[in-house]
């Protein structure tokens, strides 16, 4: 018993001392936290403003690009060209970007890909072409050997036709012989929602074997090849524009939520700060008064 007490006594002493110091320290700590949260709120607020401006531009650009994309898709739909899903070599073009802090844009694409891989099983050999560092970072952790090529330095400026042409060119000059290809991107729906979408891409063989292709007059290989190459670039551009718009809108909502959360935190911290401050004042008063009374 003695031993325990003697051990407990020195333990208790610094605790008492700490409690006295802690009141002061927390006040300082709270002030520091309050400052940093206020700074964070300032940053998220201005990021929201920036992405709101970028979103407005992206949405304006999306309108014609969407028409353009639907025009490019029209032939493949109307000629009823189908992908042969029994063939094993599958190429997936992943549309992401370099920038984060935009909600679940990139992870929803990766999630979609993971679900797709699981569904297709091991019989399908899936390779990736990734546009943007974010999706690359996530996919490379588990599927590094499946990544063929990745593009970066994408997402800071709005996508242009030459970006799309570069990607399309890479696809066309690929050593990997794929049987079917899919483009995965986020389709912009509204400021608060986007849908992860798949868009099939066709190689000339698939077009040649389509049912309704014979309806089309005077098709030589050269025309078909050039046509398909141009359509590929158009579709990639369409996906890029959709992706860019969803990203900016998602960043806007994410930053809005972050500012709101920071505001809430500031409110709570201010309350605790004031309460602690008062407690410190009260305690000091008590100390002074009781000190005076003891004299």
């Amino acid at each position, binding site marked *: 018993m003695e031993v325990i007490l003697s051990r407990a006594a020195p333990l208790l002493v610094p605790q008492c001392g700490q409690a006295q110091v802690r009141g002061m320290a927390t006040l300082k700590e709270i002030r520091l936290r309050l400052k940093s949260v206020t700074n964070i709120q300032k940053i998220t607020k201005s990021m929201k403003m920036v992405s709101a401006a970028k979103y407005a531009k992206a949405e304006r650009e999306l309108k014609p690009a969407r028409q*353009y994309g639907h025009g490019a898709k029209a032939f493949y739909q109307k*000629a009823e060209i189908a992908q042969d899903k029994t063939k094993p070599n599958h190429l997936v073009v992943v549309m992401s970007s370099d920038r984060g802090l935009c909600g679940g844009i990139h992870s929803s694409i990766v999630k979609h890909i993971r679900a797709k891989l699981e569904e297709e099983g091991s019989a399908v050999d899936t390779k990736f072409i990734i546009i943007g560092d974010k999706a690359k970072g996530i996919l490379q952790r588990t599927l590094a050997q499946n990544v063929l090529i990745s593009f970066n330095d994408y997402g800071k400026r709005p996508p242009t036709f030459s970006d799309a042409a570069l990607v399309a060119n890479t696809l066309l000059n690929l050593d990997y012989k794929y049987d079917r290809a899919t483009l995965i991107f986020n389709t912009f729906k509204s400021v608060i929602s986007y849908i992860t979408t798949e868009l099939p891409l066709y190689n000339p063989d698939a077009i040649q074997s389509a049912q309704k292709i014979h309806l089309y007059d005077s098709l030589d290989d050269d025309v078909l090849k050039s*046509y398909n190459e141009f359509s590929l670039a158009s579709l990639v*551009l369409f996906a890029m524009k959709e992706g860019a718009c969803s990203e900016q809108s998602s960043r806007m909502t994410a930053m809005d939520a972050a500012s709101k959360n920071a505001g809430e935190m500031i409110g709570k911290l201010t309350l605790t700060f004031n309460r602690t401050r008062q407690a410190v004042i009260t305690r000091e008063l008590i100390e002074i008064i009781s000190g005076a009374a003891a004299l």
Partner: protein
Amino acid sequence: MASLVSSKVSRVPLLFKSCSRLMAAVQRNYADMAFTFASPYDVYYKDAKVKQIDVPTFSGNFGILPNHVPTLAVLKPGVVNVFEEDGTNKKFFVSSGSVTINDDSSIQVLAEEAHPLDRLDAAAIREGLSKAHQEVSSASTEAAKAEAQIAVECFEALQKALE
């Protein structure tokens, strides 16, 4: 309750409008062409009804009338000429792109760059052409030479379009 009724009533003409638009679209599929003409940055026509479209392609210039045989073509630099329903004629310069005519008589003309002729600046074209000529003569590789040659062709077509 009253507000509920009025909101329903106000929806009726909207519904009717969208129905009639749908009906028009169905009819259009059989009789006329649904003409779409767009570049990534501008949409000039969207499922519009027009009389005739002249397009410059690598297999030659041709005019498209309703019920044209389905085909595909690749645009070359030149002028797309659109004759609208009311007889007005609009001209656009296109750099490259594709023409699709489907079996339901819908037509998609997609261009990398497409602009009405009044946006073109003759002086800038002349300057660009001479620069492109220089690039052809100074190009070291085959690919660079071919690229410069394409630029020359495009500028020549631009110049011709303005004449």
